[in-house]
């Protein structure tokens, strides 16, 4: 969970990570675990989005999965459920469809495994650290 109060603080956290190697304390794991159904990474990614979107209305989600974003684009473009009926994980997409218009939904693509890169804006580096924390937590949860 991002407890940072401002972008300034986030930038400082990113700088500190490159000096000390310590992940920002402002980023915290919200939930981790296996999901129901056949286990595969795209479903896991989509399931996490369902978990967030069903609980909260105003969300900005960062994912490193382009495949997931393309599935979400299908929902965004759809006028009815059958428009994405042939998509994989239709069951999860129906759940997303139901809550899609509740509040503001924003999605971003973030580079995976890029936490060591020191180029680019500090806020971007901070986002990559979020991705790293997510990755570490996933590995730990599935171990």
């Amino acid at each position, binding site marked *: 969970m991002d407890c940072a109060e401002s972008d300034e603080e986030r930038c400082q956290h990113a700088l500190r990570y490159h000096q000390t190697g310590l992940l920002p304390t402002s980023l915290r794991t919200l939930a*981790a675990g296996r*999901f129901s159904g056949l286990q595969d990474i795209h479903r896991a990614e989509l399931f996490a989005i369902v978990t967030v979107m069903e609980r909260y209305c105003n969300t900005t989600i960062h994912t490193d*999965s382009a495949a997931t974003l393309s599935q979400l684009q299908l929902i965004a473009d759809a006028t009815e459920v059958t428009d994405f009926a042939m998509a*994989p994980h239709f069951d999860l997409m129906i759940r997303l469809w139901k809550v899609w218009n509740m509040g503001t939904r924003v999605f971003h693509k973030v580079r995976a495994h890029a936490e060591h890169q020191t180029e680019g804006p500090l806020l971007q580096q901070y986002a990559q650290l979020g991705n790293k924390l997510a990755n570490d937590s996933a590995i730990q949860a599935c171990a």
Partner: protein
Amino acid sequence: MAYRQQLDYKCQGNARAFARIRDPSQSGVYEIRHQVSDTAILVPQEDGNMIAYCQHASQFRQEAIVHIHETTATLIDKDCHSITLRVHGQIPDSEQCDIHQTVVTTHPCEIMQNLQEYWNQYWTVDPDRLQPPRSFRDMLCNLPCILQDQPMDFADPKEWYQAVKMLNAKSAKGIDGISAAELQSLPCQAIDHLREILINLQCFPSWMMIAKTTPVPKVDQPHVHEYRPITVLAQCYRLWSKAVTRILLRKLSLKMPAEVTGFLPGRGPADATYHQQFMLEWAHATQTCQSGFALDLKRCFNTISRQSSAMIMRGVGIPEYVIQVWLQSLNHLTRTWTVQGLSSSPCSTNNGLPEGDPMSVIAMLTIAYAWIHHVQRQTRNLSPSAFADNWGWSTTEVSQHAPALQATKTMADYLNMIIDWKKSWLWSTHKAHLPSLKRVVKKEAPNEHVPEMLSAMDLGAQLTYRGNARLGKLRDRLHKARIRLQRLGTHKEPLPSKARVITAGIYPVALYGMELVPVGTQHMDTLRTEVASALYGHSISRNSAIAIHCTPAVQDPQVVLQQRVITAARRFLLRATATQRTRFFMMVSKHSGAAHECKGPAGVLKYHLCKLGWQLGKQGQLSINGFVSFPFLDMGLPTLLKLCNLQWQEHIMTLTDRKGLKGLPPICRLSTIQVLRKYNSAQQVKLLNEIAGAFQTRAQQATWDSQIDPHCPHCGELDTREHRALSCMALHDLREKYAEAFQWIEESGSAMGQLPVVFCHPYRECHLTVQWYNAEPDIEQEMHSRIQAIDHTGRSLVFSLMDHVITRHCPSLDTPPFQ
């Protein structure tokens, strides 16, 4: 050669490999057969010849043999009323005889002349027939205008760029000499310029409307009517037509009634036949008598009156600009035949639409719409359906056939279209309607015989109207697939290329339409053996099911068929109405699963679900084992297909009679293939042959041939697969490198010596069940409440994901968001 194959596989999408398995392309047009016949009175002459007096003596030619019944004769001389023949054999002792002659025309100019004479009857009609009668205009007054007030921007540059992109780069050049590939290489500015020129044309000039017409034979030794005239129009016209049609089709697909199928997205032939067979199945299930007609329109596009179709297009709401440019351009249309590299002089036409022109598709769709509307106005409780030149209807009220047939004939007359009674049929789910149906035909088409069909091939699928489902012409498809497999078997393509060709070039040919008919196991067994032989060469001892199961990128035909059946059912149900869904699920749940009771797609689905050991309830709940069940329509298709694969995996070891393999756990396809991918293509072939038992041991050979010693020639032990893998002293030094692995095999009691694959986990079913019912992860209550409080303020919450982990962090990032 190897480099060429590699290039084909890596850079050209196996195009060469695909081309090599297809049927050899039709040879050029070198001859036209033409049969003439007459009834003659034969008068013997003193010199031994015969004079045959007949009505049309001039049609016989001297260069071909004349047949008098079965006896041959040479034509020596002819005049207006008789031909003189030298007979080679005995002729029947009767006053009158039937004589016939097959004339073969080979000169290209004569061929072109014959073709022009034949097709001219459709392309140039009497001027009186060009204008439709008054009643046609009255009929159009009642036609609802479905495209009224629809905004359409035919000058939209994006549509034109897309149209250029969609042109077939390999299509032939038209009279303007421009190829599609050339247009595709143009920059956007040049396309814009071309668009402006074309969009401002009032009509395409005469020189650009010269249609190159190439005859393509439908059979081996074609008669003049057995050629299909392929029309190649100027590329510029094709581009204009494509760009305009793309916009129109998009609008029409939203507005056209469901009865109009074909040419529209999501309304392909497979959807149309699936729906029709479902309706038939429901009629059988409810014991309702349903009957109908399936009519074929002769030379469809070539006979359509341009004026009439333009009037219909106007009635439907197609913009006047499009109709004017199209109609005036067609009025300039002339045709030139191309045979053996020669071209005939352009001949003018005043009737018919060029086949292959996208605008002809729009015309056909609007005609179908007008026909459906007209028929529905003349009848009640009748369901018409139109797929291009295939029109038909079904009803439970037998009295409605007469007005429907009458309305159809009227419509055909308005448009100069001809109903091909020879290719049409009538059908009924019960005999009760038959006498009335035949009476209707006798009244409306007194000189024609329209057969009743119990089962017929329509739109590429075998429809069953009455009686047991039959494979019918689907057998031909299986045969064609087998021929392709045999061809593939002789090619030295690498394994991945062969796998790709089988998946994309052979299975679709073999299995199309099998969603409507139950296909017996023996057909799939034969196909499986042929697939394995094509991949790995011929072997009498190899287990084809195991070989294919462990092959990367190709699946067993039985699995592919089951997956196709599930996919088709899901596709149909997702588009169906709630009532249709309920009916479908009810039929599946009540069906016994026996092949002889299958009357349609629901029965066929049950037939295949039974093979998988799955149950589908009347609420649409699919149970795949004692513990796992889920709504059939809510589950994603890939998950369903994956579960189908897992079920096949369980079943596969039952397909072997080999004692050594009995009782072994299932082979894990995923893991085994992962290991095999470490090897190159040639090594994979050898390994898979070994896995599937293609190489016989001496012990195996000795059971068939008593002269063979069953012992190992190297160490004297009994030569078995286990012996070769685990204990033969001659191979000891090879095993030494992997001592740990062999020790594990010995200690764990693994069957890898018998079958060198990765086996499934013994608790796989338990794992699946546990995973299926995994509880959703909880978010700590306190944290959840805090986040919810922020959420209620309207501030955006930021999360990051990796598999199944959620964290919160900042919003401003490198890529633009979408909402």
